[in-house]
């Protein structure tokens, strides 16, 4: 999978910076994502909580069998989240009349168009593939778990009990199967067609069509159309999304935008701090040098004046001169210094001219 990891160095290595500059498909740094990427539409109003998708997911991904079998309905009595033994879970959020006997929703990675996990990972272990899946590459993961922090949907999990090869676990949208032209395991297994696989754009059309046909049945919102910049896994529902354990306060800002400002400050600091700090240093050093010279000259002057007098007196005078550093003396010294500097400059200039 490492070949699919996006790395700027590879672009650069390809042909040198100047030639290999990739072009943005959209003007003004606005990105629409991969146009033909796939996604899944989950129609929660059709979901009956049979957990066939969970079972299928375990099978296609070779995940260990859970303690309680998938047809054990008692599992649905508690709300679960994805953990390090699975990629997806179905929860029952409300009791309801037969035949469904409740309101259910399946959860897994939403395959964000601008994934927070990818933005956060400092080793670039996540890649948004052109097919729409956000895939994780275990071979580089350091295990900092910043991706778990960053994901607004609390999707990735970590195998904390693995001492030597702990890793992140997350739904892959069955990318290997999709590449073979097959359906994701969970979609294929769903007996109610509560999951629909297809091009993301088509899925949005389908969702809108269903809403148009049954305006009284659906909440008028496609969850994932714009949430955190849009996700490839979409949801429609007959119950308000908050009641399905989904956050409706996430906003539409894609994750990379949250940090781009701070990242943009980095080069500014690198560029300007040395200039500022260097400048301050130079100013202070100048001051020190001048102060030192003034002191020396003042002492020398005093010495010259008092050579005739006794040793005792000289010492005292010196001390006093040091303490007072009379304004007049200072000014004189400064003048002399400046003149000397000028003369020196002129000398130098003269020499250079020669």
């Amino acid at each position: 999978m490492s070949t699919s990891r996006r790395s700027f160095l590879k672009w650069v290595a390809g042909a040198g910076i100047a030639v290999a500059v990739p072009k943005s498909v959209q003007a003004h740094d606005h990105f629409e994502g991969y146009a033909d990427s796939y996604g899944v539409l989950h129609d929660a109003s059709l979901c009956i909580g049979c957990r066939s998708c969970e079972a299928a997911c375990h099978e296609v991904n070779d995940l260990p069998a859970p303690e309680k079998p998938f047809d054990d309905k008692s599992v649905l009595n508690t709300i679960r989240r994805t953990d390090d033994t699975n990629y997806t879970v179905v929860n029952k959020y409300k009791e309801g009349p037969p035949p469904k006997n409740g309101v259910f929703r399946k959860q897994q990675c939403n395959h964000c168009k601008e994934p927070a996990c990818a933005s956060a990972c400092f080793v670039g272990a996540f890649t948004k593939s052109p097919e729409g899946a956000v895939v994780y590459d275990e071979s580089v993961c350091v295990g900092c778990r910043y991706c778990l922090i960053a994901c607004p949907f609390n999707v990735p999990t970590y195998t904390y009990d693995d001492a030597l090869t702990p890793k992140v676990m997350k739904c892959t949208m069955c990318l290997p199967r999709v590449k073979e032209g097959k359906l994701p395991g969970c979609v294929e297994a769903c007996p109610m067609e509560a999951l629909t696989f297809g091009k993301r754009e088509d899925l949005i059309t389908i969702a809108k069509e269903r809403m148009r046909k049954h305006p009284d049945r659906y909440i008028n919102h496609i969850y994932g159309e714009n949430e955190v910049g849009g996700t490839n896994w979409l949801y429609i529902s007959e119950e308000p999304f908050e009641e399905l354990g989904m956050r409706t306060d996430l906003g539409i800002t894609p994750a990379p935008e949250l940090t781009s400002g701070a990242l943009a400050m980095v080069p500014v600091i690198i560029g300007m701090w040395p200039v500022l700090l260097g400048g301050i240093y130079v100013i202070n050093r100048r001051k020190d040098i001048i102060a030192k010279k003034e002191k020396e000259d003042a002492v020398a002057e005093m010495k010259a004046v008092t050579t005739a007098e006794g040793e005792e007196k000289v010492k005292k005078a010196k001390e006093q001169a040091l303490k007072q550093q009379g304004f007049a003396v200072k000014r004189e010294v400064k003048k002399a210094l400046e003149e000397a500097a000028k003369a020196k400059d002129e000398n130098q200039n003269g020499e250079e001219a020669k």
Partner: protein
Amino acid sequence: MSDMIYTLQDFMTHTKGVVYILAVSYLIGFTAFWCFLFRRDKKED
């Protein structure tokens, strides 16, 4: 495909990467430039 950028994430991967390289070269360059600028002064001190 690989020389087209479709997502903000990939755009940032590219631009921030280039900027990091430039920033490091700048730090080295600035140090050299500083020495060039102040070498005369030092000799005078």
